[in-house]
């Protein structure tokens, strides 16, 4: 059996890659995709720790999984707003203009 620490370490790697994506990519949608990657890394860590706590006999193991469920809906809400902003910008401009605006320098 793979120890939960390995999963957490993997999630750390994925999370860091996502963070680098946020900092280096320039188009809004790519930044947003990187954020989704970070969220998923966090979910992996949560599930791994849920397993850990269940395995140590603590009663709260399952609540980690439940938190993932809630974070999924948070992500969905964010996606709704984020894509809404992008589309709103798109609607107000000619389609060729979007790239210029969607490029956000951080």
């Amino acid at each position, binding site marked *: 059996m793979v120890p939960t620490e390995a999963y957490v370490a993997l999630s750390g790697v994925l999370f860091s890659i996502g963070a680098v994506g*946020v900092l280096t990519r320039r188009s809004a949608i790519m930044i947003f995709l990187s*954020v989704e990657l970070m969220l998923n890394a966090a979910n992996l860590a949560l599930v791994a720790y849920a397993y850990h706590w269940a395995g140590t006999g603590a009663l709260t193991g399952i609540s980690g999984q439940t*938190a993932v469920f809630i*974070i999924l809906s948070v992500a969905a809400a964010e996606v709704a707003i984020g894509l809404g*902003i992008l589309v709103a910008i798109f609607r107000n401009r000619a389609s060729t203009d979007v790239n210029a605006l969607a490029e956000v320098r*951080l």
Partner: protein
Amino acid sequence: MTVPEGFIVWSVLAPALILFGFALLTLLLAVFQQDRGFLAGVALTGIAGAAVFAFHLLMEAQHGVAESGFGLRYLADAHASALTLVILLGTALAVLVGQGTLERMRLDHPEYFPLLLLSATGGVVMVSAGDLITLLLGLEILSLPVYVLAAWRSDLRQSQEAGLKYFLLGAFASALFIYGIALTYGAGGHFDYANLMAAFSASGFEANLVALLGGAFLLAGLGFKVALAPFHQWAPDVYTGAPTPVTTFMSVVVKTAAFGALLRIAATVFASLEPGVFGGLLPGVLVVLVGATLIVGNLGALLQPGVKRMLSYSAVAHAGYLGLAVLAAGDRGMAAAGFYLAAYTLMNAGVFAALTQVMDDDDRGDGIDRFAGLARSRPWLAAAMAVCLLSLAGIPPFAGFIGKVLVIQGAFGTGHGFLAALAILMSIVAVVYYARVVVAMYFREPSGAVRTQPSRSRPVGAAIAIAVIGTIVLGIAPGLWYTLLDRGQNLLVFVAAR
């Protein structure tokens, strides 16, 4: 599986529920009723209703009956109720400013009011949250409407960029925060503060590094929201790009909610971490961030030509002063921050409200030239602006001064004298850039090139009046508010530790 008895306590939710209910009401009414004044009235009624309940809870907390519900996942102690009141105050001021300016700025969308109320609901949840998941949800409910509002001006590229940038960095911050939740859960096995505290202070707790990393990520996530350097870079652009009424809301309510949450986490969960090998790392990081924020915010403000942008940087700088209170969160820092946030809400909302009267109809034109001679053309507006600016600069007898003394005393009490000295040094810099506006208003002749007749609006005037009177009253009789915070202090720790 049944819900344990006494688990659900509706009364603690009252302020949030009322706000949410009125958000829905304004949303429905907006379909039939296009009259902005009416919608604003409904929104203000909701805010007042929520304030009544929050005040009741605050009074109960004074008498030792701090309520909580959902198994300590939602707290209505002095800290939560007091900051709820501050959030409601900021929201009410933003409603007034919006009502008075949105029509003029041709931004007259009726969704403004429900979105503000929804956002405020999120803020109330944040300051009352007793566990990290509730806090996260509050944070999101707070943030999403603000993203929308920041991008409100469909005709102004600046505003849309502000919205997009704010959203992207907000989402990034949320991701950091969520990862922090995951690590904290990994270290403590719980999401609620009470159990986390118990786990962290239990003997034999060894997962220090995981807990510290969790704390660092939570700090970074909330640091983005309150614009602590180096997570502040979005703030000047977004505050400047967003429509000014929205900036009013953003700069006070978002900051209050995020600081409220940060203070509580710092005072409970991470205060119980044993020093251990990496002890002092978390406060150390915070010290660096606060110092950097003070420097970046104040020097940044000094270099800005536009007043709105200067105020945006000044909002960053004030996050630094509040950061001092977070360092002393376990001590008297929470009460100090509660006072500072109230003062900051009044004076900052006041200054932005006054700014809307000086800027022109498409929400542009914040050059210092516009303020030239304002003392002659609009003496009361100029005086109000001057009071708010002086208060922001920390000059007595205004509320900002008392706030500053409180946080600086807290910093000394926890041994951060050096940081306090830095804060004071930076305050001198701050006087220079605030004084520039005052000097323009009172000394410079109006230049013919710019329009010198600022607009007049009754609701904005009301907001400014509330802000100025509040700033003066809190400066002269700070005990009115500080006592409520200070007396609730013990209960707060008691609630968290129970």
